[in-house]
């Protein structure tokens, strides 16, 4: 194999990634660990761009570095008693764990090399590229997500809904932030509408260029986070019933599209010929709103005050 400058770049990126992960995980100061984890997410987004995965780079920058970082920074507020303990398990156990992890990494590497080099039979990529014209979109990742493997995306939205229901059931929302000063207020005023516009743009352009429902939903969730930081209270969110419909809307759109197909003597989720592009756009719009509200409610921290009284257990922190 020839060694080019690209391989030098790849080695540098990989070493930097491992170094960031190590320093994020091994320090005792959790605040430092969370900030380093956000930097880790940004570096990972750069690596996705290097590996020619622009949809993933967009999603990782918005979700992995942005939203995940925001959630973790909020969680730093909840003081944990075991954080102050410097206790470590005994050194024999730690040595055994390290050896086990090295063994695990070695077997992972063996499996990886075998998987990539051995079987040169037909890959799913051939099927995907072959059927791309009939899928209704021209971005192959969107085609795979919303047409060829639409069932997986339906189940993913169900997982998202389940996680949201768990968060809503676990307690009431966190105390809202205080009213912002001039500068933060100006930032929120200017950035939030821009986020909405860019989210709509990403949703539309996901059909033929990198983008799509997940990235757009993450941007809308970021808009909710910004509004929250700007002092928005949960009374200013949409009505509870509307929120419930929006949360379930992605799954509902999928099911409707799926059953629409069965009425035309096709299989579940087999889009009728010629309708695929329009159906994908409608499903993506509903999914974007579901994802945005799910992640936004996750940032709020629990069921918003003003929802049914029986759901507001526990102290507000």
């Amino acid at each position, binding site marked *: 194999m020839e060694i080019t400058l690209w*391989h030098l770049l790849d080695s540098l990126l990989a070493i930097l990634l491992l170094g960031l992960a190590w320093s994020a995980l091994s320090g005792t100061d959790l605040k430092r660990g969370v900030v380093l984890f956000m930097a880790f997410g940004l570096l990972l987004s750069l690596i996705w761009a290097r590996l020619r995965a622009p949809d993933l780079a967009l999603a990782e920058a918005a979700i992995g570095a942005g939203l995940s970082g925001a959630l973790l920074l909020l969680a730093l507020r909840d003081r944990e008693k075991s954080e102050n303990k410097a206790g470590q398990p005994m050194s024999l156990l730690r040595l055994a764990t390290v050896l086990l992890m090295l063994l695990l990494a070695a077997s992972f590497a063996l499996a990886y090399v075998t998987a990539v080099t051995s079987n040169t039979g037909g890959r799913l990529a051939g099927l995907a590229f072959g059927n791309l014209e009939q899928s209704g979109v021209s971005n192959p990742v969107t085609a795979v997500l919303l047409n060829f*493997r639409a069932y997986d995306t339906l189940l993913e939205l169900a997982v998202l809904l389940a996680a949201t229901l768990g968060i809503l059931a676990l307690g009431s929302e966190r105390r809202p932030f205080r009213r912002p000063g001039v500068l933060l207020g100006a930032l929120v005023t200017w950035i939030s509408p821009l986020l909405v516009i860019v989210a709509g743009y990403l949703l539309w352009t996901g059909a033929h260029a990198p983008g799509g429902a997940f990235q757009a939903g993450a941007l809308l969730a970021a808009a909710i986070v910004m509004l929250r930081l700007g002092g928005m209270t949960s009374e200013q969110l949409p009505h509870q019933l509307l929120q419930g419909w929006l949360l379930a809307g992605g799954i509902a759109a999928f099911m409707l599209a799926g059953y629409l197909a069965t009425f035309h003597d096709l299989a579940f989720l087999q889009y009728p010929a010629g309708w695929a592009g329009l159906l994908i756009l409608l499903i993506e719009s509903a999914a974007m709103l579901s994802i945005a509200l799910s992640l936004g409610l996750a940032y709020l921290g629990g069921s918003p005050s003003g929802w049914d009284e029986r759901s507001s257990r526990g102290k507000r922190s």
Partner: protein
Amino acid sequence: MMLTQLIFGIAGGLLFAMGLRSALIRESLLARILAVNVSGAGIFLAFVAIAYRGLEETPDPVPHALVLTGIVVAVSATALALALRRRLEEADDE
């Protein structure tokens, strides 16, 4: 197999092992949640490295779609874990 795939695949495996070790060893719940996220990132890196086909060819879209699903599921699982942790701390205080 390309050297790029090898480099990033090995890095993904090491990240996975590193995250799993921290998840087992650390006592703080927040540190464990961070560690599981790092493990997940390692797996995603291995997937995308498998999908890479070089600078000229379009990469394989199926692992990209799987990793995109994985990223979203990982953040929602992290959010649920953080909510559980908050509830656990409140329960300990009572």
